[in-house]
């Protein structure tokens, strides 16, 4: 008799786990998936490509409804299928519309939601985040009728949103609370090159900006962004992209132990042994997640345990950063800032738009920033993960694998 697996969340982490599971133990579970969006499973990180018109929604669909049918998966998708409650005692979950399912194993993959700045006007019309197809469609609609967009947050998502909106013809200003774009991933010189490149593409920036408030017209639609320094920007569309928070309310209400996210162990198990969690909703060894690579790794480990092979352990590895803006190559990994005990190797050729920095500590590579030429990014990632001693190849390290291991 098959066991019952219920998955809450039809996103990338949850569905990758299901895919892995279907490969690892195809007959072990009857699988039921609840998703709050009315689609099959799509590649969320490709939304920026949809926004800038390089891809269509069809292009980014990973699994359409037929796939669920083909694999015998019961899919409940749509707003009213959002899960409202977990009954851990009876091992049942209930959707908003009362749909329910019993489980032997529950996988929570509820993802995250955008952080909304706690300022006056954050509830105006035209203030949106950039999380899903609905958001993209809204942005596309605005771009057809309006001109002025402001993106809050000079991180990966904000820049991708801004780039998309520019390519849709909008006048876009990115406001960032730091002097350095992508300051969580890039150092100052690389960020400066990136900013110059984006400015050449038409993006505007207001750096080290202190946001004061948003104000709107009588209809409650945003019109103006005001800053602490007294300056103002006209605004028809305001995108918040200042980070995400794990969606853990459902788990918390069910009494599952949470801190900043649903706390899981190295096997992606929550404090309730029959409940697993993966993706942006979790907290593993203090870390939360926002990029795709670790999610996929979690999916693999989680599927391994769900299929009772039970050997894999999830280790949080440094995650490489990439910006999905066509023609811009950047890469960063690990501790790219370093500390007083670190040594730095630089290679720069600004005229051709190349900047590389490697951070070395105790003869090991612990961080890297690459701009312009990212060809060796994955090799650096490998060196970093393996904690190889790089002394012997140090002189050639920054010139890449072809030179260093020639």
């Amino acid at each position, binding site marked *: 008799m098959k066991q019952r697996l219920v998955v809450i969340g039809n996103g990338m982490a949850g569905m990758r786990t299901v895919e892995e599971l279907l490969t690892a133990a195809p007959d072990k579970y009857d699988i039921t998936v609840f998703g709050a969006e009315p689609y099959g499973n799509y*590649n969320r*990180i*490709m939304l920026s*490509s949809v926004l800038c018109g390089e*891809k269509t929604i069809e*292009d*980014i669909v*990973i699994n359409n409804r037929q796939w669920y049918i083909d694999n015998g998966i019961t899919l409940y998708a749509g707003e009213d299928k959002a899960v409202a409650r977990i009954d851990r005692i009876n091992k049942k979950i209930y959707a908003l519309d009362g749909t329910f399912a019993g489980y032997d194993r529950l996988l929570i993959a509820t993802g995250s939601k955008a952080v909304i700045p706690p300022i006056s006007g954050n509830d105006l019309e035209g203030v949106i985040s950039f999380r899903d197809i609905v958001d993209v469609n809204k942005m596309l609609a605005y771009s057809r009728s309006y001109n002025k967009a402001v993106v809050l947050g000079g991180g990966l998502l904000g820049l991708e949103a801004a780039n998309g909106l520019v390519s849709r013809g909008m006048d876009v200003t990115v406001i960032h609370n730091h002097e350095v774009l992508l300051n969580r991933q890039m150092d100052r010189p690389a960020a400066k090159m990136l900013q110059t490149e984006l400015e050449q593409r038409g993006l505007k920036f207001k750096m080290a900006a202190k946001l004061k408030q948003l104000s709107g017209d009588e209809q409650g639609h945003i019109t103006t962004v005001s800053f602490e320094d007294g300056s103002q920007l006209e605004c028809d569309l305001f995108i918040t992209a200042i980070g995400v928070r794990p969606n853990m309310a459902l788990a918390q209400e069910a009494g599952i132990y949470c801190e900043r996210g649903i706390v899981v162990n190295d096997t992606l198990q929550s404090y309730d042994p029959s409940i697993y969690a993966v993706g942006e909703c979790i907290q593993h060894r203090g870390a939360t997640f926002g990029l*795709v*690579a670790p999610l*996929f790794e979690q999916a693999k480990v989680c599927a391994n345990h769900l299929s009772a092979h039970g050997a894999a352990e999830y280790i949080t590895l440094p995650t*490489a950063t*990439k910006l*999905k803006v066509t023609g811009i*190559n950047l890469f960063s990994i690990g501790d790219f800032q370093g500390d007083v005990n670190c*040594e*730095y*190797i*630089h*290679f*720069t*050729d*600004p*005229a*051709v738009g190349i900047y590389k920095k490697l951070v*070395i500590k105790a003869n090991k590579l612990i961080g890297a920033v690459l701009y312009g*030429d*990212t*060809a*060796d*990014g*994955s090799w650096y990632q490998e060196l970093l993960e393996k904690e190889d001693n790089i002394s012997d190849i*140090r*002189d*050639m390290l*920054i*010139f*890449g694998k*072809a*030179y260093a291991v*020639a």
Partner: protein
Amino acid sequence: MNKTIQTTCPYCGVGCGISAKVDDAHHRLKISGDTSHPANFGRLCSKGSALGETIELKGRLLQPKVYGRETSWTEALDLVADSFISVIDKYGADAVAIYGSGQLLTEDYYVANKLMKGFIGSGNMDTNSRLCMSSSVAGHKRAFGSDTVPGCYEDFEQAEMIVLIGSNAAWCHPVSFQRIRAAKEANPALKIVVIDPRRTVSCDIADLHLPLASGTDAVLFNGLLHFLSEQNALDSAYIEAHTEGFVEALNTANVDIEQVAKACRLNKDDLHRFYQWFAGHEKVMSLYSQGINQSSSGTDKVNAIINCHLATGSIGKPGMGPFSLTGQPNAMGGREVGGLSHQLAAHMDFSSADDIERVARFWNTSNIAQKPGYPAVELFDAIYDGKVKAVWIMGTNPVVSLPNADKVKQALQGCEFVVVSDCIADTDTTALAHVLLPAQGWSEKDGTVTNSERRISRQRALFKPAGGAKPDWWIITQVARRMGFEQAFHYQSPVEIFREHAALSGFENNGLRDFDISAFANMSRHDYDRLQPTQWPVNQAYPQGRARLFDDGKFFTESGKAKFIAVTPRLPVNPPDQDYPLILNTGRLRDQWHTMTRTAIAAKLNQHKAEPFVEVHPVDAQSYGLVGNSLATIESHWGSMIARVQITDSQLPGNVFVPMHWTEQYASRGRMGALVNSIVDPISNQPESKHTPVRIKAYQPAWQGFILSRGELSMVAPDYWVKVKGEQVYRYELAGLSLPENWQEWAQKNLSDNDGATPQWQEYQDPAQGNYRAARIVNNQLESVVFIAAAGSALPATAWMQEVEQRRERLPERNWLTGLFAKTELEKAERMALLTGKPPVGVADVGTIVCACFNVGEKTIQAAIREKGLKTHQEVGRCLKAGTNCGSCVPEIKALL
């Protein structure tokens, strides 16, 4: 219109004939050896072959300069004449001097000598031949009564044994050496012996090398004389008939093999073998050069060698005899005209009142000098001491080449009036001149030179003079006229001077003097222009010249007999001691000439040995903590230099060798002359340049590196630099004692030239490892690169020096980078490889990146699809990882499929 002109090489004393194809329109030359010239029969060495690369006008002195300001010939000549007159008026004729050179043509030399000795009335005309030939001159004079080289190059082929003494002919007289090599190959029985403390490349063809202790040559040849006597290998009849002083010489040479072996620190058996060979062969040639001459007992050494030839009668006949290999293209010509301060003219000198009177009569002068002037070293001491107030230096670079060269520099700095004639604008000596007179260069000069075998050859003008350059004879003549000697110096062309010179050689000669070219005294200009290489004497008796002298057993002494000289060997004056425990030897390199003013212009000549170096025996290297290829400071009591250490057992322990060529134009601290003791031979006054006590220690810079630059740079004074001119690029080898505050600023300051274009900078920095590299690129063409290996912040200070050294060794070879300067545009892969210093390796062009996660490019994917027959994106993923992470590129991969 291209034309071919026969001329003569301006470098060593071999005197090779050159056939130059002249392309006037492009100011280009195609050089080949003159197959008809008896000195070389078409062969040329590396230096001669590269002559076409040395004729560029960049760097030439093309206008007279007075106190740094360009001026007219009239003003410059007036100033020289007036200044000389005023010094003479005030302090007497001996307060002025001319210092000439074996680079001057015979005609130039003749008028310079005539002016000083005949008309100014001072003996103060000396020449840089003093530094290379004067011991031979003095030795010849003592033994033969004349300065005669008895044999000729043809003797090489006829000899049964050739002894090279103190001569690295392979590098210093390459064409003669090749001739000897060919003779040896044709006749393997020909024995070659090399006597030299160094195992030089000349040993390549040697049957025996005797690495004698520095300065012990006279002991060795005294021992030979003794041995010849013991073995009854003497030619008693010859000794009896044609020589005198034998018994005294033999008695003085009373050393047996044991004693010689001990004194010379030689293996007794080797020594014995040499002695036996010498005794056992009739046709023995002793070729000697600076290893013999440049010694405080050089004259005695020359005579110790000649003694052995006189004792065996092996002189003057084919295939035998002592043979001095002269250093300079016209050292012999200089001797012929009397260029040395003790000589008068035409092999006459101040030792004879009759000679003085005769020359005065010939020149029709009442003011002829009565006594020798200052020889070179003493001359510059006299300038230093203020006794000589005005000096005119012609075509030589004494600030580099003289011993105790720093003192020479000071002497010129303190001198009231310094005139320098040269074809090159910037030399260490022109830097100190008050008046600079632009002389014609080799390719413009017209006149004659005489080589080691007494062969007079024409050097012919290939091009019109560049800029305002003038022939030396013209310059001298113009000054002479302005000094009031109009009558005696009204020459219009070199042939007029040559005729007078020839006439003087025959004047009241009557067989008294060896040098007699009176057959040329009435030579027409036409014949002069067509003069074929001819060995003097050229007179009534020998109208076609004469290959050998003394074949008749007649010498030019009063008695007509050759003189044995009793030689009591003297060791070099300054022995090594506790403070200066090593012996410094100096010498030439294969591809450079003298002070590099001309050879360093030819890029290909700078490749063989690019940097001043010091050869050290491995044992000494260990004792003094020297690492191969590291830098060392060599210090003597007189001065110091910095050179790169080359560890080699071709040096004797306790001996170090440095090349003589580098100047301050090409190296910050490479002037070996600064080290050399200014000890001279009491007879010849030739300096002891082959023996100076020195000490050596590691030079420990905080950083080392190199720059390659398309343009010539004005260095912002690192402590050590060497400039090497390449084909499209100047290479600078660098070292510094302290680190600049900021390498980036340092590089921008040092690498910039004023070409106006905005450069792009590529940089590589690993400060912890002390690595800094940068490239300066203009319009995607490489303008310069700098590679620095410095003490890194990651190291404790004590480990710096060794580390810096090791790191320098890790700097790339310069070849590939150098080659990039030939390109008008850098390829992308080359640009990315630049600062590795290595050619792009294994970097295939991956095309546009498709999979950003794993950085897989379009071309890589296409290639994999093609080569491995991939059908699906999953297969591509398995093969290349592409598309297996975020999957966003899967559509593109599919499109490629």
